[in-house]
């Protein structure tokens, strides 16, 4: 039994995406004190950016925001945003002292009311490449987005011109330009890695290397489709035209050893199908073609979802796109060998091309220096008892949930969050020590 009196918090959760939030809420409901940190200015992770979820086509925000709110307002859960994990010390009684770098928000979180007057006053308008994936704009100061939690303004000091208009506009004098970063230290009983994923960040040279305007990534399309998005409609970036034909390029950032992502990202098939179905409503006249090697619809109701998409008239073409060129009109020309009766090498033009990028862990080499858990060959956090007790890493007391251990969809992330919450509770009771010591079998990954 870990001595609770020494501890500031029972568990630290690094990352406040859907998996981290689920773990935090579950642990909090068990009466354990949890500290949840996120490096972003709002909790919610990737899921809060999404439009709908597959295969039910439920609104993503409608699932995320109640959970975000439950965690954020939970009596046992303390949330810190703009906070990064920066180091830890392990003690012999199985507790950790963690260091957290609290980046300054330049806004007094207690005083800020979230009225967003500062954003209205701010003269700096810039591309929002965080939440809106470059598909919207933001000001240098303001509440990050409509459903952000905490609903407090944040100042982007790198882009701020220090004109002071926001400070004048703020009725509670919450803006402090002189705020400094802090290093916080806490004693915790367990650490949960919930850092999630980001899309494969390199667009292959053969897909334009990011230079072709009308080649966008799946997450960018998600922002175009989301009701919280700025565009409120589907347009193509180069000339804001409504696209008449949209291509989905599957395995554009995964199953490709040449960009270092040889594994399958497991969610791209489904989110492409989901987006195609949503596009059938958002851009009813557009032809949608999904170029795929195979459709991996593995979950409950997923295959039916795929069938629905086929019956809706979405084209599924078997063939891996090899090269994307830009035409004079700004459209994209896809070089692909199509399989089937009328197959062969073809060059097909589409107004807009969406790349289904892969899933790459956000837990990078830098983080591994601060918290040296072993990684799999694919750079996801290694689970030592992957099939019997998922979530246990190579350091006793350190757990991993969600997509930090491998590509997962939302359902699986939530399941993983809950299951690890149970494991953390067991660990804090002192009952999981043995499991950490015995590696299940050498996992071939």
């Amino acid at each position: 039994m870990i001595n609770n009196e020494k501890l500031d918090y029972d568990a630290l959760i690094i990352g406040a995406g859907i998996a981290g939030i689920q773990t935090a809420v579950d642990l909090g409901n068990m009466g354990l004190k949890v500290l949840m940190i996120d490096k972003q200015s709002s909790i919610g992770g990737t899921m809060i950016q999404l439009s709908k979820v597959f295969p039910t086509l439920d609104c993503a925000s409608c699932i995320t925001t109640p959970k975000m709110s439950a965690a954020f307002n939970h009596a046992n859960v303390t949330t810190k945003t703009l906070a990064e994990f920066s180091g830890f010390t392990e003690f012999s009684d199985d507790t950790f002292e963690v260091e957290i770098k609290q980046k300054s928000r330049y806004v007094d979180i207690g005083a800020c009311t979230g009225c967003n007057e500062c954003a209205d006053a701010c003269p700096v308008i810039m591309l929002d490449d965080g939440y809106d994936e470059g598909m919207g704009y933001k000001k240098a100061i303001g509440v990050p987005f409509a459903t952000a939690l905490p609903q407090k303004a944040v100042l982007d000091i790198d882009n701020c011109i220090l004109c002071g208009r926001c400070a004048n506009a703020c009725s509670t004098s919450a803006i402090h330009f002189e705020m400094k970063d802090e290093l916080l230290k806490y004693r915790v009983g367990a650490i949960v890695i919930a850092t999630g994923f980001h899309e494969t960040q390199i667009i292959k040279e053969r897909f334009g290397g990011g230079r072709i305007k009308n080649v966008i990534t799946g997450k960018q399309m998600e922002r175009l489709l989301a009701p919280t998005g700025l565009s409120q409609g589907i347009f193509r970036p180069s000339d804001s035209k409504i696209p008449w034909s949209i291509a989905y390029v599957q395995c554009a950032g995964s199953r490709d050893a040449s960009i270092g992502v040889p594994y399958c990202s497991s969610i791209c098939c489904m989110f492409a199908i989901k987006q195609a179905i949503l596009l059938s409503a958002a851009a009813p006249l557009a032809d949608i073609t999904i170029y795929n090697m195979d459709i991996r619809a593995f979950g409950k109701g997923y295959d039916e979802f795929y069938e629905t998409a086929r019956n809706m008239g979405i084209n599924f073409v078997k063939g891996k796109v090899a090269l994307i060129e830009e035409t004079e009109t700004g459209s994209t020309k896809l070089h692909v060998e199509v399989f089937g009766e009328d197959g062969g090498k073809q060059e097909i033009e589409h107004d807009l091309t969406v790349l289904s990028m892969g899933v790459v862990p956000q837990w990078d080499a830098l983080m591994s220096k601060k918290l040296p858990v072993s990684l799999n060959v694919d750079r996801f956090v290694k689970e030592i008892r992957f099939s019997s007790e998922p979530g246990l890493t190579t350091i006793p007391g350190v757990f991993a949930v969600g997509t930090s251990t491998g590509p997962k969809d939302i359902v699986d992330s939530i399941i993983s969050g809950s299951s690890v919450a149970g494991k953390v509770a067991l660990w804090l009771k002192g009952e999981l020590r043995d499991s950490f010591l015995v590696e299940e079998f050498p996992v071939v990954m």
Partner: protein
Amino acid sequence: MNEVKKYGAFDVSACFNCGTCTATCPLIEAENGNEFPRGVIRLAQLGQKDKLLGSNELWMCYHCGDCTAACPREADPAGFMQASRKYAISEYEPTGLAKLFHKNRGIALFFMLTIGILFAAFMEYSNSSGLFGEHDYLVLGGYYGEVIHYSGMAMGIFVFLVLTIGFIRMYRSLVRNEPLRKREYIMDHLKMKHSIILAIRSFLDLFKNEILMQKRFKRVDEEVYYEEGSPPAYLEINKSFEPGQKVSRWMIHMSIFFGFIGLALATAFDYLIKDLILEDPAGWVPIYHPVRLLGIIAGISMLFGTTMSLYYRLTKPEDNEYYKSTKFDDWLLLILIWLIGLTGFFATIMVYLPTLPNWSGYVIIAHVVVIGELFLMIPFTKFAHMIYRPLGLWMLKYEELKIDFLENLPSEERSEVIKVIV
């Protein structure tokens, strides 16, 4: 198919048949129905040996390496095509020597050295012992003329026989096999008259575009995809030559090819004029004699091509898959050709020196020995592409013309030209 692996191919099970290689290939025009390298790799995955040997797709590929650069599995489709060609050459030729050489470098080297030394010794022996009677004509400081003449004849007959058998074998496996992708009309057999007309037409096209100009090869050089900011090293300006000159692979191949043609012509003319017309085989010709000039120019062209080719291989441009994939037998062949050029060059210089150095005889022996080796190697190495590739491309053109012909034919006339095979 493990067999192809021995010729340098990757493990074909690495390929997941995505078709990226086919889609990037600069030789495959949209919708013309070809699907190599993927289709060819698929044949190997399925173990369809006969189909692999009978696919003229093998001979369409010029190994630009674009598919290898694009492959998401980091397999080596271009290398597979290269290995399959070597495999096909080994399978077509009847003696089994090619197989032995490809699989075992030691044996290949040993064999070549032994033949070289034996041949050189034979030349020297026959010269000093007067095996061929009187030394009736002179070749540069020695009396090897008759030896060269007769052993050349013997080798010629041997090589011709082996190549003919290989040619027939390849032709048989090409016609026996259906193409990878069935297109309309392709299985129809034309009546004799029409097929001969088409064969001649396709051969003329082949001769003009592929043999003389090697247009397909040129297109590969021009259209291959390069990542932004990294032009292919071999297209960069070569400073040791005329400024702005680009020594592409096509250029290199053309200079070697025409070098060979020129040298062959020069040899033939030389024989015609000196032996048959003047009946003075040992006759000395001035350097400005047209046949001599042709020989010199062709020799320089060949030497230039092989030197550049070797140079690029040695400097190994990082972004060029082709030069990276050079195998042992490719080196051997290139070095042999280069040695021929070099020794020939020295021999020519020595003819026009006022006095012959003592070792000039050895230069000519070396020259003749490497020529002999190369000549013997023709059917067994990738040098055999000089007959197999034209045959493959000829068949390809024939098929194209046939489909074209039948498509444009009114349907009522079709029965008149198509032979019904029962």
